[in-house]
């Protein structure tokens, strides 16, 4: 009864016309941003945090959820129409959708992608709502030792998932992020760590400028110097989301939705992994006559990829809200926005921020409906946008990076930090190191550090066997962490 009242109270806030308008702006910006080749979801999220600084708590959350939902879909538009994926997770959609566009079925391919995205978001939201209570209950049993292990697993699995067949590079990136997170006054004794006598470093390194530098400036440095001609859009035709046709793909959609949500819930595994994996599973499980169409223009393949990468949104929110561990780099931006608005994420989210989880559910549902309608409405303007060269668009993002980094704490030091992070990100990229584990580690580092030291103090007079036998959740987590390293070193490492 209490919960129903809370849901209704949050719905009353979320359905205010101003809130819906802000969400609409977020969805529109997200779709346009995602549709632009080279501008990723994470980049959109990282840069638009700056814009949410001046907003109230609920407005900022609504805006960021809109951007997230919109930008994940946006990648499909350029993938189908100009054969360049707007976001990396749209590559499978590009392979299938552009083949269909060349046959004059671009509109239908985009309609399938829109409907697939809509269904994917629904599956993600339903699974998010279903699993949050169970995970929150489990998370409340976690003490310092378990929180430390969970943080370390988050960084380790993120490293494994984001570095392909070289997990060690992902781990190195994460461990460097940990070192960065230690900069500043130590939380227990107030000792300055790694500050080299520089007073401003005593406040620590904020991860928002780091996020903007690594995913904004680095992207500009990667893309702008490559002279690439603008894409030539294919004929769109009539865009009618083919509901009847999609009913035939219900099984594929449900399977892809579950895959996308589970992948989203694993730290570091983003929409990219979800769409690739779901596409691969879909190809293996397709009927023989349908399988022949894969790679040459298959609607079922589009459903597989689009449902999965959109279900990933709901999935990534699961560890973000319940454990404070972002499901991927874009969710890290959501986490940053929530923390900036004094929302305490983690096991105590419901007690410290009553109702906020319900607001997020409702926000995701509103954003999904808006995404559906805006996707149809924005396809034609997007075609115009594609004829603009990247050399025109990319320079315009530079001042947004600077403004975003500065806006967070109105401290120009953050702009210098953003610049250094951008250059470092570019160098790391050139050496083949993924960037997502670093951001995750900077977020989780303080949590890991404080909890390890608390746990060590508790364990001071205890034997190793006591720790193993008396803290079963911790023991399970130790096994999971060790398995993650084992899998990375001995299994995935051998695939090269």
């Amino acid at each position, binding site marked *: 009864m209490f919960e129903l009242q809370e849901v209704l109270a949050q719905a009353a806030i979320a359905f205010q016309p101003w809130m819906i308008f802000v969400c609409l702006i977020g969805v529109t910006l997200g779709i346009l941003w995602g549709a632009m080749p080279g501008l990723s979801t994470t980049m959109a999220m990282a840069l638009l945090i700056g814009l949410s600084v001046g907003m109230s708590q609920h407005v900022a959350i609504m805006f960021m959820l809109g951007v997230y939902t919109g930008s994940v879909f946006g990648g499909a538009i350029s993938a189908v129409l100009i054969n360049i994926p707007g976001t990396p997770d749209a590559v499978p959609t590009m392979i299938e959708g552009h083949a269909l566009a060349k046959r004059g079925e671009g509109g239908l391919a985009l309609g399938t992608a829109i409907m697939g995205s809509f269904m994917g978001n629904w599956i993600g939201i339903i699974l998010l709502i279903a699993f949050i209570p169970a995970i929150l209950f489990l998370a409340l049993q976690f003490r310092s030792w378990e929180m430390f292990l969970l943080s370390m697993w988050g960084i380790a699995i993120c490293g494994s998932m984001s570095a392909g067949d070289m997990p060690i590079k992902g781990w190195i990136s994460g461990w460097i992020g940990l070192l960065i997170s230690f900069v500043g006054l130590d939380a227990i004794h107030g000792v300055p760590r790694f500050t080299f006598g520089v007073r401003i470093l005593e406040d620590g390194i904020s991860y928002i400028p780091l996020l903007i530098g690594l995913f904004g400036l680095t992207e500009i440095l990667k893309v702008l110097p490559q002279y690439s001609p603008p894409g030539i859009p294919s004929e769109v035709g009539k865009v009618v989301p083919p509901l009847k046709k999609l009913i035939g793909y219900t099984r594929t959609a449900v399977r892809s939705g579950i895959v996308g949500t589970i992948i989203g819930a694993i730290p570091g595994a983003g929409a990219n992994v979800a769409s690739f994996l779901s596409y691969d599973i879909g190809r293996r499980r397709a009927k023989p006559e349908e399988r022949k169409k894969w790679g040459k223009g298959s609607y079922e393949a589009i459903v597989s990829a689009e449902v999965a990468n959109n279900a990933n949104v709901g999935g990534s929110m699961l560890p973000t809200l319940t454990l404070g561990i972002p499901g991927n780099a874009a969710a890290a931006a959501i986490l940053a926005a929530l923390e900036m608005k004094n929302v305490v994420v983690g096991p105590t989210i419901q007690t410290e921020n009553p109702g906020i989880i319900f607001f997020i559910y409702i926000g995701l549902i509103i954003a999904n409906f808006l995404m559906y309608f805006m996707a149809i409405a924005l396809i034609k303007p997007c075609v115009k946008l594609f004829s603009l060269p990247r050399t025109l668009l990319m320079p315009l993002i530079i001042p947004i990076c600077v403004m975003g980094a500065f806006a967070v704490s109105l401290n120009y030091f953050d702009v210098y930090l953003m610049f250094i992070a951008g250059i470092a990100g570019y160098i790391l990229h050139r050496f083949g190191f993924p960037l997502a584990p670093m951001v995750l580690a900077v977020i989780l580092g303080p949590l890991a550090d404080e909890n390890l030291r608390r746990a060590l*103090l508790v364990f001071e007079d205890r034997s190793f066997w006591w720790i193993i036998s008396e803290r079963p959740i911790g023991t399970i987590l130790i096994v999971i962490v060790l398995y993650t390293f084992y899998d990375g070193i001995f299994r995935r490492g051998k695939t090269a």
Partner: protein
Amino acid sequence: MAEGQKSRIEADIESLEKGVFTGEEGGDERSTPRKDFIASVAVAVLGIFAMILSVRLGNPESIFTAPGVLPFITGASLVVMGAGLFLKTKRRYGMDEMLAGDSLRTVRNYLSDPEARRTLMLMLVIFAYVMILGQTDLDWRFKTAVYTFRFSGFELISIPFIFFILRFFWRSTLLNCFLVATGIVVFLAVVFRDGFQILLPGAG
């Protein structure tokens, strides 16, 4: 680029065809044995440096709550990972390939690549933009009956820099570059400052 690497999209398509995911960030598409060798040494040195700094942090109370505990473990892990990367690269490509090439020639090759030169130039321009904007403190206001027009250090510095970058990369006419740079900077300033009440850098 000089190494003749595949593009990100090509690598993604290839990984899809093989049913193997190459990585969220495009993985090691731009890596070479030599780069991995350099990275392994740099990582190990960073790890040792972190360990030394951690030990120097001291031990205010118990060893268990010492501020350097996790930083030391992290540094030590980085040394192990650096060694791991070295061994993995050696096993995959062999010692000769890892050490092959002349560092000076590699730098020269890199600098002779037009894309690399453009990247370096872009870095320098953005560096100059960030530094100059950081030193600027200006906020002019022109009050009218309906609206207060403002012109701050942000617009003053951003417009010429964006104009320059557009002129260099977009290669459109001077007027087009000027109009786009002015339009977008003023638009952003109005949205952030008037729309969202956010203070701009360089605006005092």
